[in-house]
């Protein structure tokens, strides 16, 4: 077996495994069985990654804060999620007496179900997408929008002021940043010409002089990526946008009244949302499963995909360890007064890019426009106190 065929088989190993397993069944059941196997794989892999991420996050945050993370359970503390899982499973499930029983029960379920659905369109490797939908991007964001309902259900059914406040803030934040998320995605869709994720990757999977055509390496792509990253952090209620669940602000926001396994489900839902939105970000801007250099194509595509997703998760953790929490009005001001105008401008620049045609002119022009806009809008916002550090007024 030559090296290239070995690596290409390694690349397709999961597809081959599934085909082999499904081959044991009669031909009529094969497609359905294939889908079931793929779904099972997703349901096993991503919660496993979630467990690993909780340890990495705690240890990473610890190292950033000059301390060790958990290091008692298992080698270097890597069995900590097992301990956490046992803890959340054995804790008493407390439901407040005045809480709305059915809605309280359904909220974490709705969250986890909608977040898992988002994974159905992510291409995790060559030929490794669960459903190649024509409108994949739209489906993904539809599922993201449906998670807001579960946040509201959780906050309202707990009959708790803090939960309700947290839920309303969370929903306001999610709606505001969802617009940004969608607009930055529209730039990519405009250039790629399709809403289907495998086609977007195919558009980026080309190489010039060994360098890839990833959209992040274009001026409009970089701007859109940064706005997408900010919006993704806000969508998943992650620091510094985690006011709705900040412990020092709102006890635990909309999941205050949840204990035991339901809380673990909320936690799982949040981290899975992080994975899925990072997966979408890598697919849209970082080329999905394609390698950064043409020479590195022998490394399996799923390794690249998961590597890029874990890099994004590391950046999430890094931001959490660095930035203080944003207040609600600062968050909203930032969204509507800086991020959204910049994203709209980015959309215009993308259109300009498309219509200028190939050549060095479009690079220079688009970069200049975006850089100038960033600097000017940033300074204007800082000066007018729409965004930026708070000003203090002391009583005289």
């Amino acid at each position, binding site marked *: 077996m030559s090296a290239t065929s070995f690596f290409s088989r390694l690349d397709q190993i999961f597809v081959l495994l599934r085909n082999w397993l499904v081959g044991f069944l009669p031909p009529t059941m094969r497609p359905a069985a294939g889908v079931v196997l793929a779904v099972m794989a997703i349901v096993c892999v991503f919660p496993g990654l979630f467990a690993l991420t909780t340890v990495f996050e705690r240890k990473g945050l610890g*190292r950033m*804060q*000059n301390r*060790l993370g958990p290091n008692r359970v298992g080698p270097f503390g890597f069995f900590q999620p097992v301990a956490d899982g046992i803890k959340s499973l054995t804790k008493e499930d407390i439901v407040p007496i005045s809480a709305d029983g059915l809605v309280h029960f359904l909220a974490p379920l709705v969250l986890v179900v909608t977040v898992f659905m988002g994974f159905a369109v992510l291409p995790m490797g060559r030929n490794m997408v669960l459903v190649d939908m024509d409108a994949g991007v739209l489906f993904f964001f539809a599922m993201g929008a449906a998670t807001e309902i579960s946040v509201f259900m959780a906050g309202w059914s707990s009959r708790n002021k803090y939960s309700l406040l947290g839920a309303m803030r969370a929903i306001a934040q999610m709606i505001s940043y969802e617009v940004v998320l969608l607009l930055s995605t529209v730039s990519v869709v405009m250039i790629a010409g399709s809403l289907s994720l495998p086609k977007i990757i195919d558009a980026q999977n080309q190489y010039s002089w060994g360098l890839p055509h990833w959209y992040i390496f274009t001026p409009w792509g970089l701007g859109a990526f940064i706005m997408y990253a900010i919006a993704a952090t806000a969508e998943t209620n992650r620091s510094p946008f985690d006011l709705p669940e900040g412990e020092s602000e709102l006890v635990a926001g909309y999941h205050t009244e949840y204990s035991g396994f339901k809380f673990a489900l909320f936690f799982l839902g949040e981290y899975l949302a992080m994975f899925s939105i990072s997966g979408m970000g890598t697919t849209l801007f970082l080329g999905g499963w394609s390698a950064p250099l043409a020479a590195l194509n022998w490394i399996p595509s799923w390794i690249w995909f998961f590597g890029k997703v874990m890099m994004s998760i590391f950046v999430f953790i*890094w931001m959490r*360890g660095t930035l203080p929490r944003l207040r609600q009005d600062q968050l909203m001001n930032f969204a509507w007064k800086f991020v959204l105008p910049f994203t709209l401008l980015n959309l215009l620049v993308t259109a300009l890019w498309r219509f200028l045609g190939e050549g060095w002119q479009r690079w220079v022009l688009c970069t200049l426009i975006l850089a100038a806009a960033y600097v000017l809008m940033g300074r204007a916002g*800082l000066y*007018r106190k729409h965004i930026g*550090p708070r000003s203090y007024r002391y009583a005289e």
Partner: protein
Amino acid sequence: MRRELRTWNLTEGPLLGEGIIRGLAETAKNFAGSFVSAERLTTVEYPEQRIPTAENARVFPFLVYDGSNWEAGMRCVACQICEKECPPKCIYIEKSKDKKPDYVGKAQFYPTRFDIDISVCMSCQICVEVCPFEAIKMDTQFELATDDRFGGLLLDRRELAKSNEYYHSIHPTEASEVDARLADEKAKVEARAKAAADAAAAKPAVPAATAHVPEKPAEGGD
């Protein structure tokens, strides 16, 4: 309030996101440095690693005894000054009825009961400061957790008595000073006794019946 923008406001001033980038650089330095340098990872993994305590650390008091017999060599003479001076009143002393000789040979009372409740003691060291006999000093042991909630933290004189060598090992400079002072005292007392003995020997043929027999220190009590 709306502030009017001038062109110079737009051309100078901080860039949006500058502070964030600097913060990210700092945490990245922390993250990377924590694997290589101790300055960036200040955790001490207690109880596998311990930082040695400083010399003048103090936790709870203990009673010093000289020699090898803790009962006979205990310096405490049950003067009860520490019991009276202790702010939370955690010391309980019962005086003996008889006397035993101290380090200079003088007969002193001794405590038949000396209890310190270390759940009450606040480590103020006042008992150490007021003791005229250098009998009570501060220990440095802090791993005293016990599961006996009724008497586990009430130390009696047997548990409190620790040797002078132990005192030297935990507070070497202090112990040397104390020993030097006690040796001086002893030397002075012996010199006075010797002078008195010489003076008594110098007086010829004084009838022994009327003379005060000076209390000769017996060379014992050590």
